[in-house]
């Protein structure tokens, strides 16, 4: 497979980028590490004529305990022991993305904005053309849920759930200025699955902000996949909590890899604030989360199995994140 020709732009500041955005009005994609975008381009998935590379926009680089630049490479974060210690769920998630080679190029921004996946979508042009294109690219129907006019492709980024349980916020820059919103609001839960982000046209992810209050929580990210490396998540469960006297507070739980967007389950974890998270509670919570998620049959593992694994993974993630001796 090969790439069609495109024009490459390399702005060196956010302002320059916004000037390009106005000029190219919608006929472009941002290029970060390219590990997600370029394979999709090779399959002629929603190809644009222009790419705006972000590697020279200095403001987007670098990372600290407070802030992860959108262009920070996953491999760099992976090597930061302070970050790993303060945000253990993120640490797990970083290790689980793709392979070391992909992580050397892949970025934080690209990972949060990674294209959703479906086995009717991640196929060559020929394959898709021979079946009939689907809603998500070039077509007008869904092969997974034909009755509905929406897309159920699966959000398959590993970092999002871990950052959700770290109460992360994202800083965005658009033609009409900057804003900062909770990470959860980056994903459009009311969209049709094609529109699945709340980004305004041309809006750029500048950085992820990690609140001090989230540092040092005990946490875990567990990922379901067929092989222990390489594979995208078929389910990803992130948990975090602070523990005092055998009680959990600031309990957070987020699930990715199961639906069109990653989500937090505050309505289910809220009632458990201050509890000891004993085995029975974990089991009940796992089952409640499993009832709430709705995977469809568009990835390798069957939805029924993925759903059953939700309860197992929720329970295990929390059990593993408990301090020694807790949960009794």
């Amino acid at each position, binding site marked *: 497979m090969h790439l069609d020709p495109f024009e490459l732009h390399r702005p060196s500041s956010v302002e320059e980028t916004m000037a390009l955005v106005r000029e190219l009005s919608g006929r472009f994609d941002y290029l970060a590490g390219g590990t997600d975008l370029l394979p999709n381009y090779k399959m002629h998935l929603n190809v644009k004529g222009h790419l705006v590379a972000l590697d020279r926009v200095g403001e987007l680089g670098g990372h600290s305990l407070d802030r992860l630049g959108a262009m920070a490479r996953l491999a760099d974060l992976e090597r930061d022991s302070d970050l790993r210690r303060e945000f253990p769920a993120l640490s797990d998630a970083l290790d689980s993305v793709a392979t070391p080679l992909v992580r050397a190029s892949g970025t934080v921004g690209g990972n949060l904005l990674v294209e959703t996946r479906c086995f009717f979508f991640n196929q060559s042009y020929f394959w898709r053309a021979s079946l009939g294109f689907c809603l998500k690219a070039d077509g007008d129907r869904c092969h997974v849920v034909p009755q509905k006019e929406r897309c159920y492709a699966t959000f398959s980024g590993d970092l999002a759930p871990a950052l959700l349980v770290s109460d992360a916020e994202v800083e965005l820059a658009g033609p009409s200025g900057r804003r900062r919103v909770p990470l959860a609001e980056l994903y459009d839960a009311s969209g049709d699955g094609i529109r699945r982000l709340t980004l305004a046209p041309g809006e750029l992810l500048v950085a992820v902000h990690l609140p001090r209050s989230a540092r040092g929580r005990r946490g875990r990210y567990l990922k379901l996949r067929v092989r222990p490396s390489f594979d995208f998540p078929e389910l990803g469960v992130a948990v975090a909590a602070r523990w005092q006297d055998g009680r959990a507070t600031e309990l957070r739980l987020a699930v990715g890899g199961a639906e069109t967007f990653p989500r937090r389950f505050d309505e289910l974890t809220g009632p458990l604030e201050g509890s000891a998270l004993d085995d029975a509670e974990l089991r009940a919570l796992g089952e409640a989360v499993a009832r709430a998620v709705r995977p469809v049959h568009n990835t*390798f593992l069957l939805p029924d199995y993925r759903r059953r694994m939700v309860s197992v993974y929720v329970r295990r993630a929390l059990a593993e994140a408990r301090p020694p001796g807790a949960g009794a």
Partner: protein
Amino acid sequence: MSLSPRPDAELKVRGQAGFGMDLEAPGMLWGALVLSPVAHGRIRSVDLSAARALPGVTAVGASDVGVLMGGLRGDAERPPFPTEEVVHAYQPLAAVAAPSLARAREAARAVRLTIDTLTSVTEIESVFPDWPGAEGARSSHVLAHVLARRGEVEEAFADAELVVRETYRTPGVHQVALEPHACLAEVADGRWSVRTTTQTPFGIREDAASILGLAEKELLVEGMWVGGGFGGKNSALIEPYALLLAKASGRPVRLALTYREEFLLGRTTLPMVVRLDTGVRNGRIVARRVRLLLDGGASLPGRDFAAGYSIGFLLGPYATESFEVEGYAVRTNRPPFGAHRAPLAPQCAFALESHMEEVARRIGADPVEFRLAHLWSEGSTTSFGQKVGPFGLPAALRAAQRRAAAWRAERVPGHGIGIGVGFWSTSVGAGGEARVRLTPTELVLQQGEREIGSGSVLVGLSAVVERRTGLPRERIRVDYQDTSTAPFDSGVFGSRTVGALGTAVLRAIEALLSEVARRLGTEGEVRLVVEAGEIHVRSETGSKPVRELLRPSDRSAGGLVAEGRHYPPSGKIDASLVVDGSFYAYHDFAGAAHVAEVSVDPETGTVRLERYAAFHDVGRVVDWPSARAQVEGGVVMGIGSALTEEAIWSGDGRLVNASLLDYRIPTLGEVPPIDVEFLEGFEGAGPFGAKGLGEPPIIPVPAAVASAVREATGAHLTELPLSAERVARALKRGRTSPSPDGSRDR
């Protein structure tokens, strides 16, 4: 034992070994294939006009073949392009070439296809939900039928104290050679030539010439470095199209598959359903019935490919007093069946070995002792009446049994240890010839076959020469030639390179040494040695430089040339047992017993290989590092077949997981430490008693893993792969034996 790096290692690491992707020629065009979007359909039209309107594009379709070839002289049963009916998914319908790859792909997309879709058949069990029955052999869906019988089977079953009936299912698996198919064709001055990445240059010559209607001597095939074959590069796949495009354009044409196309179009093994009935009495098997339904894809009817061969592996290396075996290869709208490292043998061994274990358990016998009680040994007779030659499998199984016992003594909860047995016969009858040339400074092996990665050509054949002549390997060089000058050989497949071609090489060396001895005037044994930088011939009487032994008449050949041939005889089976179709005699008797230790996550069903041991009868090890690498590679490949690999086809004949991301071969994370042991001394037919080793290492793996999973969990799984989902489902059901009706589990 030498542990020096492989002679091709540096070339490959430096990127200096040219592979298919590196093929280039001045003025070359890039080719692309137009594949059928449907698995089955009536062709209304293949309109090439829009493609041809693009600048620099050459396009060929069915109607051009006769014109280009000066008449339709090729094999009528397999024209390059179909004219009326598309019979399998991704069948090529046209080919295009253009000055750039992008333009070629654009041209391929511009070809307008009008095809009326017909109902396609993609599941063998939808054709014959039960069993073909009396009329079966005459069904238009049957490509091949085999039937053989020994003894009074019905009576033996009636006499049995217990009859165990089971059904096993296995999916299609892909070879996943690192390198996709690629070739470069040229047609100039009436000479057709193609450089291609193949396991068999002569096979490609025969195949492509027959498809196009050329005489074999009109076509020249040159092999090149091959990035793995595993059976996928055994026959012409893209070469005829590249040749047609080169003819039509008058330019060299390079045609290469993308990896996705490799999955879609490549020939590989397909699913099968196996029914096994075993009757036992007094702890012994008294009757067996084997029934095989094999997906043959769109293979040609009557051309026998696998049913008869596979079915032998379903009887396995176990003595059976009376049996009936029957198999059908069923036509479906998938691409034609192709080879995959020991085609179907791992799947057959999975079924047979799991079944043997089940039978043993039901009668309260130890599964290994039960096998040993029925296992052939040297001098015993096979199910088809062949005398068994030197055979190390019983010793390998004993060794595996000891290893399993040692591991079991350390076993922790959640782990299981299993044993799998795999039988194989190497050098499947294909022959070859060899030519060697001795110069004052080197010994050259002239060779059409290329090194395909296993080391069998570059290391294996050199090791044979080294061992026989005494010459160090750095003085032995392989000189690759094309089919116009190389000695004929069948190809690098069937575990035959060292065994069969190696024998031809050995004979050439014998001829060379006796000529040298004659010139030296000695009757005794001679060796080749290096002294003062020159090759000398040494005998009891002293030594002499080769330089002084060469005659003026040797000069034109560049040295002293000698040839050897080997067309192995095949054994004989008792033909009176065969009712229909062909069954095969074995050439020699090789095999392995493997031990797997797994841990199984009881909730997720995830199976993890913890450690692995492989005990192999190879007759004689010719090159230890290569032999070991073969076993390790085979085990890794077998782990894929056991746990994660499965070609997934949709109901309308589409391959869903046609990518390296979705078709899951093992990564290093899944590969356990692998301990390899060879049992030597059970002499095979190859040089110094060697038996082949390319295929045997993959055979016992799924069986060993399944047996270990069973020990760890109690789940008796009858379908591959043993995916986490499938294991979890079995555990959830608490199922410890297959559903009595043999119904499907997915």
